[in-house]
């Protein structure tokens, strides 16, 4: 019983391997263990509002016996908890039902990208510096524009985590890294009207955080919405600003995960090799680019993370797989298992990237007689049905008329289907914008979307 014990990643790996050694007969065991610490500072009215910090530890144990799977997890690495978690996972196996494709990942011959992601820079930031960063962020938002009346949230967060994953099939990997982030929600006021903006950034190192962008983007989103009105209902061309484009691309990538395909829940099942998007669209999942927070050496089952093309020139190249979906599809894992310590590995993207197109930034609206620039969406979780592909989400931003940006709009929705939207891409910006976490995304132009307002 010693919750205060400190582990280094070698010791975590050793702990994970030791638990795996309990595998008996045909039993397979996979163990993921992690420790972490984090700090979050919020500033308000020029002072620290709160500082929250803590340590955490976690273990997740997956046991597979004769195609039956059980999982258990706990928030501690105490000896008795580790033993209890293994016992609980084994008990859970008893109620699982056999699936011939079930099984842990087997080591393949793909080499990991060999990224050095364990930059210790965040460890050298003192609490005083974190507080100063949050207070400075609030101050800069307040002074960015005279209409900024307050900042609901100005926050700094950082964390450091260590993890190891081992399995009875011979996998043993470990990782250690830090990250930090800032975020602001400024309020803009004009008379009785108040608008709120949001922007944030996250990076491996404090000096990689683009605080200038966070201040500019969050305050301009708030002030830009002042005076916004409800637009008429009509079919229009839509320009998706890079953060919104990223949100939609994230949804598209999720329905290209093989688990939803295998279970008949993806509108793109049976479409490999077909044109599912405009030929200008190229989408890859690339965890090998170390500048993004999606970078990784290994996936959630300990296989090498790798670059996977999903859509090339509009043609669906394939789906993302973990070990289970690959076995069931008679193919190889694409290294796309994603998981937390406390959950079973699913399938998903690490770092989706859309190739830039050919529309110069100053020509983005030029060919649009009637349309909208969507700067923000709401209700993505309730308004997109990833099975049918239908989507209808709240939208706000600026109207476009005669090839130029005009007044702001709000209280509207944009609706279509993911299938129609991909085929309706009418252009891609030539310049990608760096988003939170280092992801790059160009703006997307989509024709013929239903805008609902008045």
């Amino acid at each position, binding site marked *: 019983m*010693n919750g205060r014990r400190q582990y280094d990643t070698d010791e975590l790996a050793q702990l994970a391997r030791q638990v795996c050694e309990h595998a008996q007969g045909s039993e397979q065991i996979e163990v993921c263990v992690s420790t972490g610490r984090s700090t979050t500072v919020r500033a308000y009215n020029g002072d620290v509002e709160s500082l929250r910090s803590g340590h955490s530890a976690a273990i997740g144990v997956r046991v597979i016996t004769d195609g039956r799977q059980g999982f258990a997890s706990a928030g501690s690495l105490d000896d008795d908890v580790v033993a209890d*978690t293994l016992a609980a996972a084994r008990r859970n196996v008893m*109620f699982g039902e056999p699936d011939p494709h079930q099984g842990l990942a087997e080591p393949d011959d793909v080499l990991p990208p060999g990224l050095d992601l364990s930059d210790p820079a965040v460890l050298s930031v003192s609490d005083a510096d974190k507080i100063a960063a949050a207070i400075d962020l609030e101050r800069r938002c307040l002074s960015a524009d005279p209409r900024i009346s307050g900042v609901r949230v100005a926050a700094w967060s950082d964390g450091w985590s260590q993890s190891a994953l081992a399995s009875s099939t011979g996998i043993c990997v470990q990782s250690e890294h830090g990250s930090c982030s800032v975020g602001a929600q400024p309020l803009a006021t004009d008379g009785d009207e108040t608008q709120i903006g949001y922007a944030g950034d996250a990076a491996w190192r404090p000096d990689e955080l683009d605080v200038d962008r966070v201040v500019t983007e969050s305050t301009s989103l708030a002030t830009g919405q002042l005076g916004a009105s409800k637009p008429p209902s009509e079919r229009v061309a839509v320009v998706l600003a890079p953060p919104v484009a990223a949100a939609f691309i994230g949804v598209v990538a999720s329905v290209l995960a093989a688990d939803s395909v295998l279970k008949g829940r993806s509108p793109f099942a049976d479409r490999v090799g077909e044109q599912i998007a405009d030929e200008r669209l190229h989408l890859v999942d690339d965890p090998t680019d170390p500048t993004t927070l999606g970078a990784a050496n290994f996936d959630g089952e300990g296989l090498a993370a790798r670059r996977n093309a999903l859509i090339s020139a509009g043609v669906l190249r394939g789906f993302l797989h973990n070990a289970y979906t690959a076995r069931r599809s008679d193919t190889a894992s694409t290294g796309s298992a994603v998981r937390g310590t406390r*959950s079973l590995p699913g399938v998903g993207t690490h770092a989706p990237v859309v190739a830039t197109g050919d529309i110069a930034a100053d020509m983005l609206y030029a060919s649009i007689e009637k349309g909208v620039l969507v700067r923000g969406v709401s209700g993505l979780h309730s308004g997109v049905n990833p099975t049918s592909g*239908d989507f209808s989400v709240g939208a706000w931003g600026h109207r476009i008329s005669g090839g130029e940006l005009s007044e702001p709009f709000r209280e509207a929705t944009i609706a279509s289907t993911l299938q129609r939207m991909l085929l309706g891409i009418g252009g891609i910006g030539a310049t990608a914008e760096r988003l939170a976490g280092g992801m790059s995304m160009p703006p997307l132009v989509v024709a013929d979307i239903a805008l609902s307002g008045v």
Partner: protein
Amino acid sequence: MHHVSAPTSETLGSFMTRTSDTTAAAEITAEPLVNLDVVDATLRAALDAGGEWAELFAEDRESASVVFDEGRVEEMNSGRDRGVGIRVTAGEVTGYAHTSDLSAQGLADAARTAAAVATRQLRGGMVDMMSLGGAALAEPRVAVLPASVGTERKVALLRAADDAARSTHEAITQVTARYGESRRRILVANTHGVCAADDQVRTLISVSCVASGDGGLQTGRETVGYTVGWELFDDHDPAELAERAARRAVTKLAARPAPSGEVPVVIARGGGGVLFHEACGHGLEADLVRKGASVFADRVGEQVAAAGVTLVDDGTMGPEWGALAIDDEGHPTQRNELISDGVLTDYMWDWLRSRDEGRVPSGNGRRQSYTHLPMVRMTNTFVTNGDIDPADIIADTPWGVYVAHLGGGQVNTATGDFVFGMTESYLIEDGVITEPLREGNLIGNGPQVLLDIDALGNDFAMGSPGTCGKDGQGVPVGDGQPTLRVRALTVGGTAA
């Protein structure tokens, strides 16, 4: 931006069942989560380090879930979490430290860490400690602890649901049934003399179906969850739940595109409480009000809704999904009338915001877990009955949309603009419900929608359980309303 979504077995928590087969009776005689002498010493350490006020929040959470997919048990998960968060305030500054190390030393270290933050500038004075005790233990308010029920019975429920869904209609091609249970025990003590405990047990089952037809794939989902134990299934038959989910998916195969633009909208009882959660609930949270991030700031005493609209947040409303004996700051939950006959009467309060206003908390201080700071949150939020027969509301609507079931929603509290998803809706033509509509979001402006309610039914019902997300923390909430009509909401469909 804050949102509500249907809870899944994941958001219910992924924690572990006990390793020994303990019974409810054995649990009740257990020790407090943290020995009271240790609680006392920890709080004293926080004050000795300069804090003005200190709080200890201890949590022990266990949960289990079963996922039944493609006709077989696919996942069997369990999880366990235990930890303590120490909060120390000095003036306007709050320090918070959390740890899973429950030893006296671990807690003292956390107390000093939290105090060091709060007392950067201030050297606080000692406050007289109350003598702790008495309320440090709580009994689960359930008939049968879910963890005491054999796993094979849980699997049998899911299998029955799967069978029922598949036999409802040949178009049903996929069924996922999930069972989730959680038990959360908390102990809260602070230097103002609060010492309270609660034992919160929740049980949930949900069924999601996919139907395939000429028009592609459609989905239907039903969830039942309450702050109760295994007795949930005395009143709720998983097979009936599954049939409803299956019928919803099949019905939507024939759905036509929803209208686009402003439309009169009738919302079925229990199906649209989330509208009020989003349209005004978040805007009545005192933390948002205090920072000027709510359109309802400075409006107490004003007419903010149509006459007849009374909005209540009630954490005592067992066995609803958002029910609690105490909030996560140790204050008893209560029934808070927020809007009375259209007039704004009060906001919801946590300890910090009520301290600043010199008033008592309303029992709305909640947190996701011991690693989180509490803030103002809703519990069970609902609009009370009007006096119109719901059939008359529909008959009195020449053309519009009838929403039988809503999905999640999201609100921008600064403007009051909110969206929520229609997961089952129909066209109303000449006062009659006619064709099913495809899914879409509705968007409206909270203050305007409250004034635009022009018919309130007499058939109040609570809706499905929800998980409310705010600033990255998810907590269980309930909502409800009678059948009602909003004069105009923007329906985000694709039909011209």
